[in-house]
């Protein structure tokens, strides 16, 4: 056996490794495929061996072959084998191979779950790292669901290397398993402030990706990002954040106002072009979102445009490109600022770089006006002629059409010119955009009634010269224009000069080589032409011509009857029979023209492409419900209308519009306009300047008399240029005329202007034709939604999740329960839940601290106004910040519905509504926060972190007091806002944000659902539930100073009577005191700020100041209230006991650095104590979870059945635990700088475990 292994490994030494394989392939250039196939055979042999090294080598080679395009999925199982090797070298090879060729369809992926989990929890960081990297490439919904929890734990790993990878991969997990977003989000948010820049950057990355798709859910993070933006020096992070703000500003213009200043500063100060560029971009986004709000933003636009001009003029093509790109964004809202740089942009059209030319083209789109349209298009047509590669030429073509057709042909003054341009464009060979030209032709011919005569003439020429268009290749896209040409000639055949000739052209044998759908149109429209010809000749004594026409059709149509295309065949045979019948009638001298024409009678209305979709579903109609039993096989439901020829649809809906009365029409038109104004995807009805005539009939349209001689005689030759000249002449003439008109001397106008009945003074440039641009029809009650533009298959749609809503019990990440290796229990769930909650709490607290900071600033500014009563102070505050007052009132209202995220919203509002920062203040405040007196609230967010320390020394004891009081008021105000919210969660027992936030001490039931509230006291009228006191405020980090604890109490009215005048009082001890409003006596009771109707419950918060926290405390208290029923009202009272445990003074403080922890232990400042628990019959992690959850510890490091834990008291005592377990015995060695606190905490821990 041993010999065999040795032999195997010696063989291996002669195996090809990757280098040999590569070398071999390079040496077999002629028969590479053959060589590789022998290599693959070898690899297959190698994979059959037991030796993992051989296998790994084989897999490594396969990875290379995969890159060359060979399918290696057959080796998926071997890859999994290599992945599960215990050696890092092989494991890495395995994971690399997996990341290159595994995907959702790979079935062996499900075998990897346990292996990956094992690797994720490996003690070696590179095993974990390699697993995370691999997983990021092939994570499936199943893997995401099974591993989400493990990865989330890794987000708090001690090593930043793992943390950043875990944070990044969460994005992939969210995509595959959207349910994980909400539970994981608090921790992700926490990582935004990770001490390691890499982790921070990863978190910013992930949140930016998330927010890009669903920005509104991330608005509440704006203050945090703002802080990061003003404090970070990492350009990578800054760029991401600034990009994110670009996505957020459209949703919240106030945010934009706040951003302008720091962004402008960055633009001025940064030397990094990348950062400068992103800043400009975001400023543009802000300006777009503000477009009307801010009066003096023209300076910002000027700055942007000016910086962009510098970029565009730079010799670096990359900067040039980006400059143009950003310029096009400004163009949308501030075209004037860009138009002044027209010279620069036209210059870019001649750039040798295609990308730059394309960007310049984009810009041109927005720069055209009535005046310069023809000129610009002429320039573009020159480029079309010059263009080499078809891609760029096609791009030019679409741009020309876009430019001309934009805003409902707003800038076109002469449609003859436009038709000529379109006809000229048909000469492009090999373009893919024949259908585009075709649809433009159709659109113009249908909607601009005045142009039909001209259009028909041009189309007839096109049909006559069809051979020029079709060329040899059948697939030539340009032949699509024949579709339009044929249809226009048929539909508007009354304008044809010589219908017979056109008819003849449409029935040439060559037509049979055209694509089927075009032939079909030819056949159908031949029939229309036939009808026209008949009518023309009707009444003539000599019926020869008409009969000739019939004969022509009878001769030619059989060709189409034989067509392989069903539609052509069907139409042709139908029409053939019809013509034969007509011929018979003709021979009998029966007049048939009238009847034949009637076949094709009817006026057309253009219908908006999405009209069908917009029809609202009538109430009570369920379109998804089956009418009959579902058939066994469902048919393809996807019947997208062929976009190109959507315009054809009006044909079918002709009759639909006939019965509508005038009133109805007007009403619909109104609705439609409103709808279209909101929808960027509709061609808008011409805006203000140009009047639209919704002419009810054709008669009202001024008929254009056109001199057809010129264009018709040069078919297929450039002719649009002459319009340019004509137009110039016309304008000249007009100018002259206008002068003359002033002198009241009317002269005869130019031939072309005959039709122009439009009022002269309307615009500088009057259109050559008064055109009737018919707006598109929309159904009645069309829904004004833009939803249909979203792709229903977008994976990010599932991530549109409200992140501010508190977590529900059901939202926990799934935790495996029946797996043998590392068992987890429900308790761990709670850890996982509690940790994110904890983080949420922390960030919440930070926010509060922010507020405190603000208050402090404000306070200092009012140093002289001392000793005011509670209310007065508050009023004063509101007065001095009226904006804020309004805001908070608004949020109070908003808070009423229980599901609203009022607290978050108010935070954001508060942050946003603070006055715009005065210039330069932004930068000053951060370093010298203490000096910032008057910049007050706006400056506060940045200055918040280091403020307390800075400010402390100067403040006297008394001012501290006052500050605290104000803080408390603020808190209470906030609480009020939150109240109903809290209450709601309590009732649903949801373990939601706020309840879990404060872990319970006296927790009876080990299994969820659980409530953190426990009964405080109860009588027949009222029930009091206390939430564990944990919302502690470690205010100035001052150890001697007293600390505060907030107690939340829910009052529930159990009776049928109304409860009012509730007063809450507690008998203060020396150590713990209820905080009462200033001026109140030490024994006065606090009024509960609400009344309770029957069956209603509400929550109130009470703040206690605590001096020493080393002992648990019990306080006796009384609640008095008046019970008011219909007949009587009685005074009632209820006694209770408040219990403060020592644990409630501990704050979960994650400790990232094991080194620091070790140092702390070694320092010798801590005193030890220990505890032994016998008969603990639960898994170790379950035990840890309980300690974490109930006693606010966090795990620093865990090795097997031994774990270090850490927590900190509100007064800064360090508490360290070393928990070990063996055989139902748990020993806890603890160290703390305060022995009595430690003793009490240990007792409490013991109690917790004795209960279970």
């Amino acid at each position, binding site marked *: 056996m041993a010999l065999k292994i040795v032999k195997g490994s010696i063989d291996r030494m002669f195996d090809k490794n990757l280098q040999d394989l590569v070398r071999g392939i390079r040496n077999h250039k002629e028969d590479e495929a053959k060589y590789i196939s022998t290599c693959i055979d070898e690899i297959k042999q190698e994979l059959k061996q037991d030796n993992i090294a051989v296998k790994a080598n084989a897999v490594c080679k396969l*990875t*290379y072959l995969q890159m060359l395009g060979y399918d290696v999925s057959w080796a998926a199982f071997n890859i999994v084998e290599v992945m599960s090797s215990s*050696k890092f070298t092989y494991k890495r090879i395995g994971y690399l191979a997996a990341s290159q060729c595994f995907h959702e369809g790979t079935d062996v992926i499900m075998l990897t779950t346990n292996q990956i989990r094992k690797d994720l929890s490996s003690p070696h960081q590179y095993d974990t790292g390699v697993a995370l990297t691999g997983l990021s*490439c092939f994570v499936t919904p199943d893997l995401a669901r099974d591993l989400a929890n493990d990865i989330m734990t890794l987000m708090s790993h001690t090593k930043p290397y793992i943390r*950043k990878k875990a944070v*990044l991969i969460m994005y992939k997990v969210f995509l595959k398993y959207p349910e994980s977003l909400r539970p994981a989000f608090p921790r992700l948010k926490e990582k935004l402030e990770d001490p390691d820049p*890499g982790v921070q950057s990863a978190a910013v990355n992930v949140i930016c*990706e998330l927010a890009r798709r669903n920005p509104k859910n991330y608005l509440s993070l704006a203050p945090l990002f703002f802080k990061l933006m003003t404090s970070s020096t990492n350009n990578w992070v800054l760029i991401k954040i600034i990009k994110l703000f670009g996505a957020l500003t459209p949703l919240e213009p106030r945010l934009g106002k706040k951003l302008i200043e720091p962004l402008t500063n960055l633009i001025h100060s940064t030397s990094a072009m990348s950062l400068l560029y992103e800043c400009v971009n975001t400023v543009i986004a802000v300006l777009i979102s503000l477009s009307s709000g801010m009066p003096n933003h023209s300076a910002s636009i000027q700055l942007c445009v000016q910086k962009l001009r510098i970029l565009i003029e730079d010799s670096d093509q990359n900067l*040039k490109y980006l400059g143009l790109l950003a310029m096009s964004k400004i163009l949308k809202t501030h075209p004037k600022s860009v138009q002044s740089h027209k010279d620069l942009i036209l210059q870019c059209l001649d750039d040798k*770089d295609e990308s730059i030319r394309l960007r310049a083209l984009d810009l041109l789109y927005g720069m055209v006006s009535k005046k310069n349209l023809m000129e610009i298009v002429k320039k573009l047509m020159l480029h079309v002629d010059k263009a080499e590669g078809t891609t760029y030429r096609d791009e030019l073509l679409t741009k020309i059409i876009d430019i001309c057709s934009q805003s409902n042909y707003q800038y076109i003054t002469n449609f003859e010119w436009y038709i000529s341009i379109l006809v000229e464009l048909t000469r492009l060979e090999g373009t893919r955009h024949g259908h585009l030209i075709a649809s433009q032709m159709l659109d113009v011919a249908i909607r601009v009634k005045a142009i039909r005569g001209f259009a028909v003439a041009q189309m007839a020429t096109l049909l006559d010269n069809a051979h020029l268009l079709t060329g040899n290749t059948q697939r030539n896209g340009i032949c699509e224009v024949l579709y339009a040409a044929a249809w226009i000639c048929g539909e508007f055949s009354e304008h044809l000069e010589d219908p017979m000739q056109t008819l003849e052209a449409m029935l040439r044998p060559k037509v049979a080589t055209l694509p089927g759908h075009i032939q079909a149109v030819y056949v159908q429209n031949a029939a229309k032409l036939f009808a026209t010809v008949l009518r023309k000749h009707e009444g003539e004594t000599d019926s020869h011509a008409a009969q000739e026409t019939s004969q022509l059709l009878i001769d030619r149509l059989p060709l189409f009857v034989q067509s392989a295309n069903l539609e052509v065949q069907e139409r042709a045979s139908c029409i053939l029979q019809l013509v034969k019948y007509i011929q018979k009638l003709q021979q009998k001298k029966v007049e048939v023209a009238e009847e034949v024409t009637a076949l094709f009678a009817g006026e057309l209305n253009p219908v908006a492409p999405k009209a069908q979709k917009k029809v609202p579903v009538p109430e009570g109609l369920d379109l998804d419900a089956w009418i009959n039993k579902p058939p066994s096989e469902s048919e393809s439901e996807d019947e997208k209308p062929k976009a190109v020829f959507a315009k054809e649809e009006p044909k079918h809906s002709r009759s639909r519009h006939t019965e509508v009365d005038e009133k109805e029409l007007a009403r619909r038109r109104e609705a439609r306009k409103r709808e279209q104004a909101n929808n960027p995807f509709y061609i808008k009805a011409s805006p203000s300047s140009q009047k639209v005539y919704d002419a009810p009939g054709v008669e009202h349209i001024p008929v254009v008399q056109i001199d057809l001689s010129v264009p018709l005689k040069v078919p297929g030759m450039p002719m649009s240029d002459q319009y340019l000249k004509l137009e110039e002449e016309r304008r000249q003439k007009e100018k002259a005329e206008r002068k003359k008109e002033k002198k009241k001397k009317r002269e005869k106008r130019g031939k072309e202007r005959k039709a122009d009945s439009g009022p002269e003074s309307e615009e500088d440039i009057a259109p050559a034709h008064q055109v009737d641009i018919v707006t598109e029809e929309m159904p009645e009650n069309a829904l004004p939604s833009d939803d249909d533009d979203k792709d229903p298959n977008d994976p990010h749609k599932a991530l549109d999740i409200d992140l501010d809503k508190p977590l529900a019990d059901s939202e926990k990440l799934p935790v495996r329960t029946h797996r043998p290796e590392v068992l987890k229990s429900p308790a761990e769930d709670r850890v996982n839940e509690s940790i994110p909650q904890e983080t949420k709490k922390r960030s919440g607290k930070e926010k509060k601290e922010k507020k405190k900071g603000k208050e402090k600033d404000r306070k200092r500014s009012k140093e002289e106004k001392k000793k005011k009563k509670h209310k007065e102070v508050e009023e004063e505050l509101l007065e001095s910040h009226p904006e804020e007052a309004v805001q908070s009132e608004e949020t109070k209202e908003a808070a009423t519905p229980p599901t609203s995220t009022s607290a978050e919203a108010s935070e954001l509002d508060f942050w946003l509504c603070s006055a715009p920062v005065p210039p330069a203040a932004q930068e000053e405040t951060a370093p010298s926060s203490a000096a910032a007196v008057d910049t007050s609230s706006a400056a506060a967010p940045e200055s918040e972190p280091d403020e307390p320390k800075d400010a402390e020394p100067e403040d006297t004891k008394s001012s501290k007091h006052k500050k605290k009081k104000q803080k408390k008021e603020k808190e209470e105000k906030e609480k009020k806002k939150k109240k109903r919210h809290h209450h709601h969660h309590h009732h649903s027992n949801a373990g939601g944000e706020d309840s879990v936030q404060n872990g319970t001490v006296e927790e009876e039931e080990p299994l969820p659902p659980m409530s953190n509230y426990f009964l405080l006291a109860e009588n027949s009228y009222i029930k009091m539930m206390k939430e564990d006191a944990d919302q502690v405020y470690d205010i100035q980090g001052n150890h001697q100073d007293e600390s505060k604890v907030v107690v939340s109490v829910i009052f529930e009215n159990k009776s049928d009577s109304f409860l009012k005048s509730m007063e809450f009082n507690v008998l203060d001890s020396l150590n713990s005191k209820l905080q009462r409003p200033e001026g109140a006596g030490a024994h006065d009771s606090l009024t509960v700020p609400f009344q309770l109707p029957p069956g209603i419950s509400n929550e109130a918060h009470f703040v206690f100041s605590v001096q020493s926290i080393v002992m648990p405390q019990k306080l006796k208290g009384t609640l008095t209230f008046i019970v008011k029923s219909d007949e009587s009202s009685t005074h009632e009272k209820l006694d209770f006991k408040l219990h403060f445990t020592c644990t409630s003074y501990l704050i979960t403080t994650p400790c990232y650095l094991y080194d620091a922890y070790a140092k702390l232990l070694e320092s010798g400042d801590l005193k030890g104590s220990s505890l032994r628990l016998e008969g603990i019959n639960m898994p170790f992690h379950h035990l840890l979870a309980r300690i974490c959850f109930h006693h606010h510890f966090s795990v620093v490091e865990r090795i097997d059945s031994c774990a270090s834990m850490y927590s900190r008291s509100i007064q800064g005592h360090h508490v360290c635990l070393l928990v070990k377990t063996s055989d139902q015995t748990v020993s806890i060695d603890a160290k703390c700088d305060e022995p009595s606190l430690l003793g009490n905490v240990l007792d409490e821990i013991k109690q917790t475990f004795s209960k279970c």
Partner: protein
Amino acid sequence: MIKAILIFNNHGKPRLSKFYEHYTEDTEQQIIRETFHLVSKRDENICNFLEGGLLIGGSDNKLIYRHYATLYFVFCVDSSESELGILDLIQVFVETLDKCFENVCELDLIFHVDKVHNILAEMVMGGMVLETNMSEIITQVEAQGKMEKSEVRAAPFGLV
């Protein structure tokens, strides 16, 4: 997001391909070919951005590339990435390769594509930028290299 990272030489031979979205092998090859076609016909002194190819997703995507001697480094990214940032990232990538291989040349990439993958994995993960600090990247790559070496030394014949 980065959708794909491709390295190929002046003749379009792939030297590394990393797709962060799944495509079949055939499509991958097509994408490489198409990208090569787009990139290779561009002059040296024109901009390094290209509106995306047809195969690799949609109008939101851009190709950002750099050309070094015989190799093209192409990143396909969507609009959430900063164009200039990605250009810098490519530079970091190449400099890192240069440090790790000591004067990197095409041959290094040809024979050690696995190593290149490992370096890349320290910079970009699942299509998102993981680390941009070169010394940090090199530290991690070298630490893993050491680990690999120690394992090989411990069991030169793969017996363990």
